[in-house]
């Protein structure tokens, strides 16, 4: 098997390298890739979409259709992890363990009964380990600032490197940090599974819905200049606002999918302690 793999890799490698013989040199300004389409993008972005970040303009406007499917891909991955791993475990009527937060005393409640939800007790499992105090406290302080930075990244996608995907991942990372530094039940209590799953779909619906709105207003799908009549501005600014709306949709979808995938994979679907 090793020999076959080595031969396949070598043959493919030689084929690929041989085909690069006619490629333009590295960083050549006169290469076909740099002279055919990209001058139009670089020179006309400002006057056609009024967005200085050319990458965001191309991503969300010129090739916005690809980006919509990209968001659908990440949604499909979240849905796939959910359908593969999630086990809706019926609670066996065994003993439950609760821990009093102030004193650290563990209370065992006998079969079938449970404590009413309250601020002083948290539910734990038999494999529970106490979270480290320093990590727990530092993360609790950092998480709001991380989220603020993520919102900045989404909103400033027009002017600096950033955009929906990047900001969404940072937002997702903030909630996953909560799950890592404390435990999974805490983060699920903050952002419930049902809300997370529905928001995931809602994010992509915002993107596709904006495109469909443009369709209903008479122009082609994802032609944001149709939004000029809804937003009361000129078509170029409408494109800029349309880009912002879809970036927000992308950010919501990516955040919720990252959290959904983490929850499912780290607890192998049972939504108990997590890692």
């Amino acid at each position, binding site marked *: 098997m090793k020999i076959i793999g080595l031969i396949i890799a070598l043959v493919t490698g030689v084929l690929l390298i041989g085909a690069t013989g006619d490629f333009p040199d590295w960083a050549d300004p006169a290469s076909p890739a740099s002279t055919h389409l990209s001058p139009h993008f670089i020179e006309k972005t400002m006057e056609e979409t009024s967005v200085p970040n050319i990458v965001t303009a191309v991503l969300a406007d010129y090739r916005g259709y690809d980006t919509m499917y990209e968001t659908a891909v990440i949604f499909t991955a979240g849905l796939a992890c959910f359908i593969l791993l999630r086990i809706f475990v019926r609670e066996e009527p065994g003993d439950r363990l609760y821990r009093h937060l102030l004193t650290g005393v563990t209370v065992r409640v006998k079969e079938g009964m449970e404590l009413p939800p309250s601020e002083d007790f948290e539910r734990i499992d038999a494999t529970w380990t106490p979270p480290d105090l320093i990590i727990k406290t530092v993360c609790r302080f950092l998480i709001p600032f991380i989220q603020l930075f993520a919102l900045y990244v989404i909103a400033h996608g027009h002017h600096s490197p950033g955009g929906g995907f990047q900001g969404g991942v940072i937002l997702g990372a903030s909630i996953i940090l909560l799950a890592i530094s404390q435990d999974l039940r805490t983060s699920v209590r903050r952002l419930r599974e049902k809300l997370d799953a*529905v928001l995931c779909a809602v994010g992509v619906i915002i993107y596709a819905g904006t495109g469909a709105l443009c369709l209903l207003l008479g122009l082609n799908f994802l032609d944001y200049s149709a939004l000029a009549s809804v937003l009361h501005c000129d078509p170029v600014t409408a494109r800029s606002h349309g880009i912002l709306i879809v970036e927000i949709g992308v950010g919501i979808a990516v955040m919720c999918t990252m959290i959904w995938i983490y929850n499912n994979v780290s607890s192998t679907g049972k939504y108990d302690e997590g890692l």
Partner: protein
Amino acid sequence: MSQQYPALLVIVPLISALVISAAGWINKRLCFPIAVAALGVAAYSSIGLLLRVLDEGAIVYRLGGWDPPMGIAYYVDHLNGLVLAVVSVVAFLNLIASKKSIELELGDKTAPFYALYVLQVTGLLGIVATGDAFNLYVLLEITALSGYAMLAMGKDRAQLSTLNYLYMGTIGACFYLLGVGYLYIVTGSLNMVDIANILPSLYESNAVLGAFIICLVGVWVKMAFFPLHAWLPNAYTHGPSAASSLIAPLVTKVMIYVMIRLILTVFTPEFAFNILAISKPIVWLACIAIFMGAILALAERNLKKMLTYIIVAEVGYMVGGAWLGNRAGMTGAILHIVNDALMTLCAFLVVSNIAYKLKGYAFDDLKGLVRKMPFTMGAFVVAALSIIGVPPTCGFFSKWYLISGAIQAGQYAFMVALLFSSLVNVVLFFRVIEICYYEPFSDGHGHDQHAEPMAEAPLTMLVPLFIVAAGLVLVGIYTGDIVNKIIEFAIPQGIV
């Protein structure tokens, strides 16, 4: 609204899949009606689009309002229109037929399964309709990911088989992406028609040759062309019935469409057939694919796995037909896309019915099945006749075109392979039919052959099966119309 058919075709299923996923958390009973409505709208739009293309010629739909090659454009001509209609109708019929089977096999996860189903159909329709090479890659990945998730919901070996499918599928998609990258580097464009305009001056360069071969190998991996077929039998056999009967008829055929599109539109036939001298080796490889598919099918004692090996052989027909290099061969390949989708759907719906009522589909479980499920076995006989190639079912006509193309091109080995495969199919199917019709129904302790109670599959599973079986005969009868009005115009004039 008819101007917007190309967009509606993909957008309505996409938004519906998202709504199904969200609605599944609120009320599970909403999911099936939304899915049926979405696929119904897609089927209606695709048929309307095909009729528009027959009137007006090729349609270009600019997404985002940007002209290609700045933006992404849909490019729908006769070839696309036909395959779009076939894909959407097959997916719609399969959804209706699979409702009971999904509820049986998937338990509490029917809502996400419906969402993945509709996402898969969105991906397939998008692959066929698009005119942009990179957009095709993204849609390929949506199709692949939803396919992996659906196929992995089967029992015992399903997850391992799907993981192997994932590895091979990712290699295939990445090779395709690499090929598109090579094309982009030497032409600077991603739009298929634009690339085709720029390429002729570059035909002599190594980069274009490398791009073509890498794209071709990538597409071959995804369509399970021998020897890259090892993932297909396990992945399709162990998946749930509804997933297999969606993915088996459609995904490999859409990949064949991608290959034909690459040959005909992006790298024009002059490059693919005349400048590159690889037609003959590829047709030989197709012959080997057909032989191996037939022989491996003979060795199987499991009905579903036998059908998957037949799919491997059918892929060999289509690849060989496309690479024969003449009009008859290409017509046969395109016609076979339509026919094979219908035949495979019919066969897999039969297996789905059997799986719904019995515990398995190994040959030993099928004894005397005709007494228990006469209607299903009737449809199975029609599918068998079509796969063998008996007139007036459609399978005969596509084989006819392929054989006449082989004779015209002088590739007698291909003709021999086709005839051999038909003979082996006769053996395969008559073996199954003999077990079903003539063996006594085994229920463990029965010696007497009193009439067993008929326990046929429910009506929602039977009616689509009949429609498809009738379709096999109807498409066969109307082959002349299909070829003269649609496929004639799909193939460029340059090919004789």
